[in-house]
């Protein structure tokens, strides 16, 4: 019963650390490819939609992707476009505070895919980033085979 508020309150918690989620483990194969700088999308043989990172179920067909078939793993280029972006001025983890350095977060869509996901744009000034900008994965020197290998992008200079 905290004194600072004149009202009595009782603490409680929702023990989310006691929850598990079964993911189907599809990212295992995806991240292995990243070690060799290979990006693989999964294709729905029903409607041809290509997902990067891979999805197990196609929303258009309500079907499970047939990932046991090699032809449904499509090699994807590491080039793409900025669908949208933001320049993050504040962080909220551990309370709202001004960021010393402002990261540029983007929605990226890689060429020849039908999906987008979130990433971070490096080596770009705040007035340079724009919607539709051509970008490329900023591969680490030796990729670890982890999502961080394709989280950072940089401007694609030559088209």
């Amino acid at each position, binding site marked *: 019963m905290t004194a600072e*508020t004149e*009202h009595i*309150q009782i603490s*409680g*918690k*929702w023990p*989310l650390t006691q*929850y598990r*989620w079964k*993911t*189907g483990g*599809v*990212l*295992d194969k*995806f*991240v292995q490819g990243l070690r060799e700088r290979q990006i693989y*999308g999964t294709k729905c043989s029903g409607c041809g*939609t290509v*997902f*990067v*990172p*891979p*999805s*197990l*179920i196609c*929303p*258009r067909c309500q079907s499970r992707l047939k990932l046991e078939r090699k032809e449904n793993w499509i090699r994807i280029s590491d080039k793409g476009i900025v*669908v*949208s*972006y*933001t*320049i*993050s*001025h*504040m*962080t*909220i*983890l551990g309370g709202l505070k*001004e960021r010393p350095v402002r990261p540029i*977060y983007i*929605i990226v*869509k890689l060429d020849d*895919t*039908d*999906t*987008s*996901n*979130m990433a*971070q744009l490096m080596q770009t000034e*705040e007035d340079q980033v*724009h*919607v*539709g900008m051509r970008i490329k994965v900023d591969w680490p020197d030796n990729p*670890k*085979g*982890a*999502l*961080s*290998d394709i*989280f950072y992008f940089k401007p694609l200079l030559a088209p």
Partner: protein
Amino acid sequence: MRNIAIVGVGITKHVSKRRDVNIPEFVYEAVKAAIEDADIGIRDIDALVTGNMPGFEGVNCPELWGGGYWGGYKKPMLRITTGGSTGSSVAQGAFYLVASGVFDTVLTMGFEKQSDGATTVGLESAGMSDFVAMRAYGMPELDPAGAIGMFVFQAISYMARTGCTIDYFDRAAAMLRSNAAKNPYAHIQQQVTAEDIADTPMIAYPLRFGHTCPTSDGACAMIVTTKEKAQKMAKKPAWVNGWSSCAEEASIAGLHGAGSINIDPFDQRGCKFAATKAYAMAGIKEPQKEIHLAEPYVPFAHQLFLYPERLLLFNEGESFRQFDQGVMHRDGRLPICPSGGVVSSNAIGAAAMIRIAECALQIMGKAGERQVTRDVHTAVAHGLGGQANFNVVTVLGDKPAGR
């Protein structure tokens, strides 16, 4: 399909903390107000439809404990929840229950008592399973600043696709907050100028503090009934003539980190689908001419322009151009969010129902100081939920639709 109408509305004054009440007591305030507004007794209520986002308060299915406080003792009670659009999905549950003929009079309520939980806890748990899955595969720590992180991409896309600039967002927020100043139930009620908004700190470009919604404790209740009973209960019932909702894939991040085919949360095809169906059901052919007022779900200022366009009230890229002529203001041709909108008051479970309730009050001429200048014969309300993937549209009128 029977004609149905809203005959009673109850909304609590939204504040950041109601520490003097528990959840059942808090929602009772809105229920009591709605029953008194409809001037009926609890025996006239045949069923309840309720909903909230329990992760924000940490009470699972709070109507099990609170149902009796809200008139649900020994009555049928249904619980519906769909994220931010919960309030509108709950209301549509009530519409279906009455229009189907199963019940005559339904009491429906949406609420959130966010001060009982840490503000971002509900949001955090929405993405936790995907976040830990991606972290397990080496995804870096990411902090897109909560819900704003998803909607800020809408704002950038809107600016890029339409040529809109950030000062329009400042003016939009100033109008909405000034509307809220005339709304006794709104959380933030200060008369502000675009310059005041422009001075607020930037959270994530282009959205400033002044462009974003507060987290509120708030509740809303409505009484929905049949044509015959509505005409006895209310001088001027608000007829609910059309409603639909549409689900898409969660934008930006699919399940467990998969890529999402909802490529840009700017598109919002689901809103256009739902609006098209709702207008057709209400017999509305040209929404741009026939709709007189709209209460879209606007937790962030740029959405004052994006969603009216997705609700087919303006062609793409035209809404902000007409803003400076005062079209959307309280005395304009097509007032948008005369209540001040979600950017002025956001209790998750109540917000999308309040959009419908505010349209009903304007049609019934009971919106007090915030009643718009023009006559309101038809209005459209909109709820948004999930990761911008649930759009829920409701069309109201001052006459029942021809069935």
